[in-house]
């Protein structure tokens, strides 16, 4: 009996496999945060005056806020003056195509198994690679532009489509929303901008690989996706980070806007450095992700596979404003060793006949703590709103924790809200059965975990799902399993 626990421990305590650092000359701001730094960032990016003022306003607001402490995580106090708020890899030449990409940068992507060339050739995925805050390669732009689709870095959008950025930036996550969103608004470095015009179905998955590089650089990504009436887009975000010693703060903001009959599918596979076995190092991932179904019959679907970060604080949410709109949240959150995750979603039902579905699968291993925190809110005029929530927890070993904090607020009595929750352990019987069929314990755990997460993995686009399965295996082999 104890033998299996031992094996579980062994496989749940292996080291992070993607730790390496690319040596690229960085162009950085000095440590610390003040109005001059905000101005430095804005100037670096040649931003228009209105955006600088927006940033400054956010910064001044941030100064009035205090860091939230209600979440079920513990970490030493962050010294915000000890962080570099801007760092960009210096491209040696201006890039016109993928072939001109910095070879070292390319090698990094190759190590991660996400060669842009291959992506380009095999999957038809347009990749906007974000490395240390600045987009270094954007593909398929021409092809997308033919249909009026804009897919570029946010900095570029600020220059080329300022009217769109001005209209939508901060429209879903206001700069005053929360501590980390305010910080992001003040110092955001770059991110993606997607605009799908009326009636256009984006012909390919849009994808960004985020990667934190340059030691000590906080990452403040900002992504904005706007889908006009009757349009469709599927967006993929994936991350891995190099191993390092100091904690890194990552406070991203993602905003989605879906108009009448539009659909946005946002998928994330996140594998940032989780810290070593003692929990040292690792990324603090404090993210604000929110979408608004502003139009009738619109749909926003979040799918996330979270395996990395030492601390995850993240609640991708949907505001169901348009009548008949649909919000979905599919999540797999894996915590291992000393990782802590407090993640979930918010579904805010405002429009009539709005529907939401939440499927959350938590996996805790090692000494980690994994919390699901979700809010389902049905407003007064949301006639016939429906919600279904399922929150499952899987425990590996006997030193980890799983917690569920479901909040339900219903102000309209025509609503139907369902909540189901289960907690299970990987059974030794299951592992032995697999062993007897020739499947080693690690592979068995991977198999069982993938089975457990199937409902969520099924939501991911094919090539991403395969990657996610691998990732689950590595992080539980990790631990996974």
């Amino acid at each position, binding site marked *: 009996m104890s033998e*299996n626990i031992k094996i579980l421990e062994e496989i749940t305590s292996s080291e992070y496999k993607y730790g390496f650092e690319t040596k690229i000359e960085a162009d950085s701001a000095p440590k610390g945060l003040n109005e001059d730094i905000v101005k430095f960032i804005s100037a670096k990016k040649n931003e228009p005056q209105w955006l600088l003022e927006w940033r400054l306003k956010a910064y001044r607001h941030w100064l009035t806020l205090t860091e939230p402490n209600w979440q079920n995580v513990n970490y030493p106090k962050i010294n915000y003056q000890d962080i570099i708020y801007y760092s960009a890899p210096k491209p040696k030449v201006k890039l016109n195509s993928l072939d001109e990409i910095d070879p070292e940068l390319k090698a990094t992507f190759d190590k991660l198994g996400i060669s842009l060339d291959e992506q380009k050739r095999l999957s038809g995925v347009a990749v906007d690679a974000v490395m240390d805050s600045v987009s270094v390669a954007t593909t398929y732009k021409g092809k997308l532009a033919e249909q009026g689709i804009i897919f570029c870095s946010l900095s570029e959008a600020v220059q080329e489509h300022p009217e769109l950025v001005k209209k939508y930036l901060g429209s879903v996550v206001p700069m005053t929303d929360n501590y980390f969103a305010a910080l992001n608004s003040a110092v955001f470095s770059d991110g993606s901008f997607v605009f799908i015009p009326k009636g256009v179905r984006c012909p390919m998955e849009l994808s960004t690989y985020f990667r934190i590089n340059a030691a000590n650089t906080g990452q403040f990504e900002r992504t904005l996706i706007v889908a006009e009436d009757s349009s469709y887009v599927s967006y993929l975000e994936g991350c891995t980070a190099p191993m390092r010693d100091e904690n890194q703060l990552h406070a991203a903001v993602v905003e989605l806007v879906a108009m009448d009959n539009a659909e946005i599918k946002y998928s994330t596979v996140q594998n940032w450095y989780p810290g070593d076995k003692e929990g040292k190092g690792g990324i603090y991932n404090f993210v604000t992700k929110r979408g608004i179904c502003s139009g009738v019959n619109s749909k926003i679907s979040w799918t996330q596979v979270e395996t990395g970060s030492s601390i995850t604080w993240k609640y991708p949410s949907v505001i169901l404003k348009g009548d008949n709109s649909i919000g979905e949240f599919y999540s797999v959150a894996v915590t291992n060793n000393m990782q802590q995750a407090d993640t979930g979603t918010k579904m805010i039902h405002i429009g009539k006949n709005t529907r939401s579905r939440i499927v959350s699968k938590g996996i805790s291993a090692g000494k980690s703590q994994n919390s699901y925190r979700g809010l389902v809110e049905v407003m007064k005029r949301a006639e016939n709103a429906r919600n279904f929530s399922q929150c499952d927890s899987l425990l590996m070993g006997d030193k980890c924790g799983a917690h569920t904090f479901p909040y339900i607020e219903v102000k309209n009595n025509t609503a139907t809200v369902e909540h189901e929750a289960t907690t299970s352990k990987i059974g030794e019987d299951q592992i032995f*059965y697999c062993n007897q069929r020739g499947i080693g314990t690690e592979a068995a755990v991977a198999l069982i975990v993938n089975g457990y997460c199937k409902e969520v993995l099924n939501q991911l686009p094919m090539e991403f799902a395969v990657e996610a399965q691998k990732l689950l295996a590595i992080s539980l082999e990790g631990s996974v399993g």
Partner: protein
Amino acid sequence: MLKIKDLKASVDGKEILKGINLEVKAGEVHAIMGPNGSGKSTLASVLAGREDYEVTGGSVEFLGKDLLDLAPEERAGEGVFLAFQYPVEIPGVSNTNFLKTAVNEIRQYRKQEPLDSVTFLNIMKEKMKLVEIDQALLKRSLNEGFSGGEKKRNEIFQMAMLEPKLSILDETDSGLDIDALRIVANGVNKLKSKETASIVVTHYQRLLDYIVPDFVHVLYNGRIVKSGTKELALELEEKGYDWIKNEVKAGSAV
């Protein structure tokens, strides 16, 4: 093929197997019978390598290797298969996916190339006929919501797919109606060859009407107390296990 010498095993400090001696040669079918609690299933589990059981003495040689020295998955790779009395359920993992993983893990152990999907599916179709298994069952999650009969049939199907050298059937007949029993037994018989051997653990004689054993051993109180040919099974059926118990008590059988 298999040489068990003076095998002793205990669980939670309680000795269950008190010195088992058994030799199985290629091409043979051995039946192991005995009353409840005699150690039949323990023997099957120990051979498969279940950790709950502690081997306290003796040796097991399988095709020249020390079986007890191998991890359960290595034993499977060497060709030991256990058809479980209570097959487990694994939600979300399709039967097909599970089998493909198992087949390729075993192939890897044997340093063979993994099977591609097309070849795998063709082999699967062929073996499906052997055990008359419904295709719908293969798409479902492993054993989840399967009836008792379906689970047992699935065990035999896995056996067909994995092509073991030594198959151990642990009370495969329990919970089966007569039709299912016939199908399962037919499957086992079709898989029989000169190169393979089976150990059939059963409580009742009726399975042996379909799977005819070359040898029958009676396990009682952790020891094989009587061995014979298939007639022994019939005799047991007629006289009941009390006959054995009494013989043992009288000291004549040991």
